């Protein structure tokens, strides 16, 4: 049974499809408006550079992020997802990021269980003052996803074939 599960886990990430040499991953970044989105703006105003693979979606609070968004991203457009909110204790909406934190842990374990590499779903806490940290986080996530390669097998167009 366990071997069977493991076999299935391996099946989403592998067989590793050789990425074309000019392949660039797409990373979906879902950021809370008050801390991380503001932090990412600060990265811009400070002209700090990071890889151009991330596409940013603004939500009011990290607690607004439905696991559905993560799954849908991986299913349709993204090779990895980054969710970022206010530091625990600093939530603009008092306690939203605590709910988010718990929800993400479960989501991550679930996705890991069904076969996604854990680095494909990453979470961070970036405050409105942490422009450099945001650049660092995006750079790290991009590098992680590049190492993992394209996420082919779960994509809609491939599901019927596998």
């Amino acid at each position: 049974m366990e071997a069977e599960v493991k076999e299935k886990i391996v099946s989403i990430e592998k067989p590793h499809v050789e990425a074309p040499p000019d392949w660039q991953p797409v990373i979906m970044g879902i950021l809370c408006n008050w801390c991380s989105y503001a932090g990412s703006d600060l990265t811009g105003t400070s002209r700090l550079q990071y890889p151009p693979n991330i596409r940013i979606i603004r939500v009011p609070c990290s607690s607004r992020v439905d696991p559905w968004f993560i799954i849908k991203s991986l299913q349709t457009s993204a090779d990895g997802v980054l969710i970022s909110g206010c530091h625990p204790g600093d939530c603009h909406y008092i306690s939203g990021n605590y709910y988010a934190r718990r929800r993400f842990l479960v989501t991550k374990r679930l996705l890991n269980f069904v076969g996604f590499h854990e680095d494909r779903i990453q979470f961070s806490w970036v405050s409105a003052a942490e422009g450099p940290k945001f650049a660092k986080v995006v750079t790290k996530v991009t590098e992680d996803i590049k190492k993992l390669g394209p996420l082919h097998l779960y994509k809609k167009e491939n599901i019927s074939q596998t």
Partner: protein
Amino acid sequence: MARVGVFVCFCGANIADFVDVPAVVEEAKKIKEVKYAIDYKYMCSDPGQGMIRDAIVAHRLTSIVVAACSPRMHEKTFRKALSDAGMNPYLLEVANIREHSSWVHQKDKKAATEKSSDLIRMAVAKSMANEQLHEISVPVTKRALVIGGGIAGIQAALDIADARIPVVLVEKSPSIGGKMAQLDETFPTLDCSQCILTPKMVDVASHPYIELLPYSEVLELDGYVGNYKVKIKRKASYVNFDTCTGCGACWQKCPVKVPNEFNMGIDKRKAIYSPFPQAVPNKPVIDAEHCTMLIKGKCGICAKVCEKGSIDYTMQDEIIEREIGAVVVATGYDLWDPKPYEEYGVGRYKDIITSLEFERMVSASGPTGGVPVRPSDGKIPKSVVFIKCVGSRDEAKGIEYCSKICCMYTAKHAMLLHHKVHDSHAYIFYMDIRAAGKGYEEFVKRAQVETAATYLRGRVSKIYKKGDKLMVRGEDAQIGQVVEVEADLVVLATAVYPYKDNSDLARLLGISYDKYGFLSEAHPKLRPVETAKAGIFLAGCTQAPKDIPETVAQASATAAKVCGLFAGDTMLKDPMVSTVNTDYCTGCQNCVTVCPYQAIITEEIPLGHGSKEIRTVAKINEGVCQGCGSCVAICRSMAIDLAGFTDMQIINEIVSI
């Protein structure tokens, strides 16, 4: 049929230098729904906004995407442009191609261009699901609640009431006045605290727009900005304030003696008491903990001597409710307990007192008639050591912050000591002298010159007893030597600490507080008097240590905020709030649990159309909802959605690239 207009901004060279803007426009034109796309040098400028307005009309656009700087920057500007063209402002989406693209990918124009196109694609996709939203109009109850009757609460209440807005002022002790009433003279002018405070206290009591509730506490706060409901407990005073004349016969005859809190326990008060002679209201209350009549049912002297028959031993606590629109929290501070400083012998040596005890002693109306005395033997001290920063700026034993007022009042104490005991000498151990404020540095200089006090820069390491004197051993860092000073009296400038029940009050009000218990302002610089909860404001030391001028200034600022809030009959609120689709709601109430604002309640609706059976569903109070979206993500049946950030909008963004 959707007709989207895309407007791409050059932002001078900020975007255009690193993103191929014309290529982005061409790419945008390929999107099926985009009927019009154009670029311009400065979209936020008046001609730029004019282009948007004209295009909306000319091309019958149904939603607008502006690709420019961050929406945190100019979303409001562009929304207004839409409004001006007669379009619902919430049909706007902003693609952030400056902060998120041109500025962060300056070395890779191709990638930045591609990314910008993607961001526009996402914004266009999101705008497909945008709906017309309208600002929510919330009625306002024009009455303010002020919690705390110290100088902050008094000033706030008077300023609000002077604007002809009714105020409910709640004070937990029998009289208003707070800490300022305990002070003798105030720095830097040395004017008498009572002389400037008591007229204000009388103003409060006689003001037609102020309802003064002394000896009361706030129990509950429900509702939201403009529409709060507060429950206040009026503690039983056992004295009928309506008939009591405050003659004082009762407290003169009362046989029970209790340490007097107002005088820091230096003398005694009675079980029926008015805290100080200038108290407002000047009516006594019975201290139920100590009154023998209330404990054992024996005595009753006060009732016998009261000519008006105002004493009523059967009086009960009374709960009253008021509808209010805004709250000013002005609960003030407590002094930090210096117990951890064991090496000072706090608690062991009677002649070590706190600054507020010293303040009461030198007060003309104080327990010693304005003369400082040694608590151990009642002698007048000739050599007094003042130790600053007891608790403050001491991470090891106390707290990290600076209490702000101690440098000034210690200089004042040196002066008061000099005025009261001419042949005395003050020694002041200090870390730094922080005298920032109008006339403050001059005041400290004046104190040093007039009193010839010895300022010793360094910490005290030990205090021990030698005969009837206290030996204070410390370091004089300026000569690099250990010094010992023989003292008759030691005064500790203990730290300003939040009022002990602040954290409970904060939870009750639903506002946040820091690790010490000081209540948190919404923004440390730009919103210093507001809290994160709309309609609740902070004044005075409840937020951070402050001196009197600052406290008064902040109190007046809260009054301005309250008056601003009440300027109209209704308030407009952002329409980005959650709504429940009751068809889908299963009544699990997970949303009720996660809502940080208690904005969700349940309601009962018919099971089916015309059915007599009922089912429970969630109901969101849009006046309270702040639009965080916690409830949307937790909802199992997808019955809740958040306007402006709907599931559809976000999923559209995700699948568009």
